[in-house]
């Protein structure tokens, strides 16, 4: 909460990741002092560290996706717009939330988070991290038998 208010000008996803890493460091310090220090066997320490890491990063990843959904999900945006208006027809929905808007917002976010580079009006891949994630997701779609659509 404090970080989100403190770093208002930074991309919100970056702030969320920063908060998760900060909470990880605090959690690790607390566990080291109150739990791992009191374990007698080395194997118990290893097991406890491994368990804690898996559980923490599992819940952290879930939280990040939940946050990201609140920021970027089209379905959440649609629910919000219908709730605000009370009711909306399909035409009104497509008028107020166009494909152009969807692409423009995403291009801006991808440039802000250094995933894309904008030079002379051309977008190219900058940091390959999310690009590799996209390749993995595309592979997973094929495994699940989902038809490829954009």
């Amino acid at each position, binding site marked *: 909460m404090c970080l989100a208010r403190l770093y208002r000008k930074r991309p919100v996803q970056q702030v969320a990741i920063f908060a998760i890493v900060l909470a990880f460091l605090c959690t690790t310090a607390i566990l080291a002092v109150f739990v791992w220090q009191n374990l007698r066997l080395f194997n118990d320490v290893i097991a406890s560290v491994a368990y804690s890491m898996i*559980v923490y990063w599992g819940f952290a990843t879930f939280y990040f996706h939940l946050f990201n959904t609140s920021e970027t999900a089209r379905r959440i945006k649609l629910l919000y717009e219908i709730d605000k208006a009370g009711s909306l027809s399909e035409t009104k929905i497509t008028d107020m939330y166009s494909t152009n808007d969807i692409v423009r917002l995403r291009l801006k976010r991808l440039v802000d988070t250094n995933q894309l580079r904008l030079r002379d009006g051309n977008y190219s891949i900058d940091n390959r991290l999310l690009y590799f994630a996209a390749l993995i997701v595309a592979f997973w779609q094929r495994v699940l038998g989902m038809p490829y659509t954009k």
Partner: protein
Amino acid sequence: MKPPKNDVLTLFVIFLGIPLCVFFLLVFKGQGNWDTIELLQILILHSSLALVYIASYPAAQAHSPSLSILLIIGSSAKGHLTAEEINRQYTTDQTIIRRVDELEIYGMIEKRDNVFILKPIARVIIRLYIFYRRLLGLPPGEG
């Protein structure tokens, strides 16, 4: 095999509903070699991994436009594209109409007299999202 219509609900049942039932069954009916704390640890570990899968699923299922933009640019012959060239790859049907259809299938909205209205569960969900974003000092997401 065709995926179920309400795939997110199916994931919740498979990955969280059934394991929770097994957990309570083991706790109340006798659990063999494990005590309740150990079973709880197993449940927490399982839940954290299950939630990762459930949360990442919509990116694949709803064909995240951010990820698909990266794939389109990455696979282009020139290695770069203009906003207009990217825009041309999408139609309103792909980006919005299908999402509206899914909300109807998931029981979040319903069509009455040619307009969409929220069902009570969707109203609760969206208000929770707005409350959560307000706690963070953020306006509602831009989508």
